[in-house]
């Protein structure tokens, strides 16, 4: 089995999905966005071990860049996406340079401030962002004749986005960069003894993570087509991105995606079945996973497989 088998199956199912269940496109787009955001978050939070609670900042940056490019500067959406990713990487670099001296929870706390600062900018710089009233994306150029407001187009864009993010993670998972990040996560002093510059590795991880999140933010912006600072630079959004990855399994290839399937579906299901009680059940679910599977679903599974494989090899 090649390391891309899983991704190929995922892509095949993804391509067929709208043909089989055309009524669930919006839900599927939400799921794909959360899967990719959580995967992108996980590059920094899981692989490099620096938990961020500010990733809504990157979502917002991507979304606002495409909205402003279309409405204020009449820039084509593909340029806007690239600019958004560039801005996100620059923000990650600046933020990381300032805060990677901080350890553990202090870095995490500082990330909450990033999204908050961007939210305040979005509210107050009315000339640019439309302020607290928000901004409406009313028209977008059509790349290759694609109507970006069409749900099916958005679905396939989100699918392509997820595949790109996971492909990138598979690319480094078993290679030099993947091990450098894991070493930094486990023990920075020991990583230095292996010739690794921890700050540099963390910055790279942060920039990749931020840029990829912004790419999804652009798709999200078009999907919503109406942006409000309070909604998009929203702490609960940051928290949900982080939780999705943590529950699914940090530092694993498919963990964040599994987490997204679980959380997005259960949120939807519980809302329909239990109405008012849905948040309670959602909370209990999160608690159960964190208490009994601290590595997350895929993390726990992977851990068990490694142990079992080793145990079996010693028996023979």
């Amino acid at each position, binding site marked *: 089995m090649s390391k891309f088998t899983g991704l190929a199956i995922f892509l095949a199912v993804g391509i067929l999905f709208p043909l089989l269940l055309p009524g669930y496109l919006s839900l599927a787009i939400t799921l794909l966005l959360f899967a990719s955001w959580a995967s992108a978050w996980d590059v920094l939070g899981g692989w490099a071990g620096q938990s961020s609670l500010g990733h809504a900042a990157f979502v917002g940056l991507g979304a606002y860049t495409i909205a402003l490019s279309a409405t204020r500067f009449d820039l084509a959406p593909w340029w806007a996406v690239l600019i958004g990713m560039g801005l996100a990487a620059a923000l990650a670099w600046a933020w990381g340079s300032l805060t990677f001296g901080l350890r553990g929870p202090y870095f995490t706390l500082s990330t909450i401030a990033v999204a908050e600062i961007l939210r305040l900018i979005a509210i107050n710089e009315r000339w640019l962002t439309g302020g607290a009233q928000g901004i409406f994306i009313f028209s977008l150029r059509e790349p290759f004749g694609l109507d970006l407001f069409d749900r099916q187009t958005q679905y396939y864009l989100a699918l392509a986005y997820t595949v790109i993010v996971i492909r990138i993670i598979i690319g480094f998972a*078993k*290679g*030099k960069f993947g*091990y*450098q990040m*894991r*070493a930094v*996560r*486990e*023990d920075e*002093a*020991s*990583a*230095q*003894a*292996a*010739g*690794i*510059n*921890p700050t540099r590795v963390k910055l790279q991880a942060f920039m990749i993570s931020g840029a990829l999140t912004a790419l999804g933010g652009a798709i999200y912006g078009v999907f919503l087509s109406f942006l409000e600072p309070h909604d998009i630079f929203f702490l609960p959004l940051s928290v949900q991105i982080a939780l999705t990855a943590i529950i699914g399994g940090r*530092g694993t290839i498919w963990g964040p995606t599994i987490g997204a399937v679980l959380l997005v579906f259960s949120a939807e299901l519980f809302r329909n079945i239990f109405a008012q009680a849905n948040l309670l059940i959602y909370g209990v679910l999160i608690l159960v996973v964190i208490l009994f599977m601290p590595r997350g679903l895929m993390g726990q599974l992977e*851990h068990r497989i*490694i*142990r079992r*494989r*080793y145990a079996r*090899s010693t028996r023979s």
Partner: protein
Amino acid sequence: MPEVLEAEGIVVRFGGLVAVNNVSLRVQSGQILGLIGPNGAGKTTLFNALTGYAPLHKGRVSLLRRDVSRLAPYARIRRGMGRTFQIERPFEELTVLENVLVPAFLNTSNRREAEALAWQSLEKVGLADRARQPSADLNLARRRRLELAKALAVKPQILFLDEVMAGLNPPALKEMVTFVRGLSSEGLAIVMVEHIMRVIIELAEHVIVLAFGEKIAEGSPEEVTSDPTVIEAYLGGSDD
């Protein structure tokens, strides 16, 4: 013999406390330098100053005739240092092989080449049969050997061993002594901090004795062990 490491007038201060005061030393390739001294003498601090883990207040560290005094630990490692930690620090979530893969990637970006290098290191320290085991499950003696395998995988010119013998049972201790001697006979320069006097006498060609951060004696193992100031420092000031 080419000089691998040269340190001049090393001073390390933590606030008002002078942890290491004006210590100089040299190590040539194939030579084992032993650092001994009672508890709190500044052995590990000196060690950390040489490898970049403790800030130098004054002094100069040269590695292969290049000044590395201002370089971060990772940069010194890239220029030819390798080190172990007194309290072993495996990457706990990684397997034994993956642990060694991390430093092996310093020499190549190719996974296959890095893996070959990691296997070499593991075979050298006798951990190859444990390669797939989660490193968190290793016992003390094997954790020590894993530390060594990691330090060797960067292909260092000089190896810093921080109490690799402490806590080992007699057979494991004997194995480790033979192993370290083997490394030095291959031309590796070695600096070792050690508590066990017998080990130092057996291994080191040159010994530096520290007490309260100062070098109080220096010479061959026989010379320093018969030096009255050393005996006094150990019997008078030590609590172990």
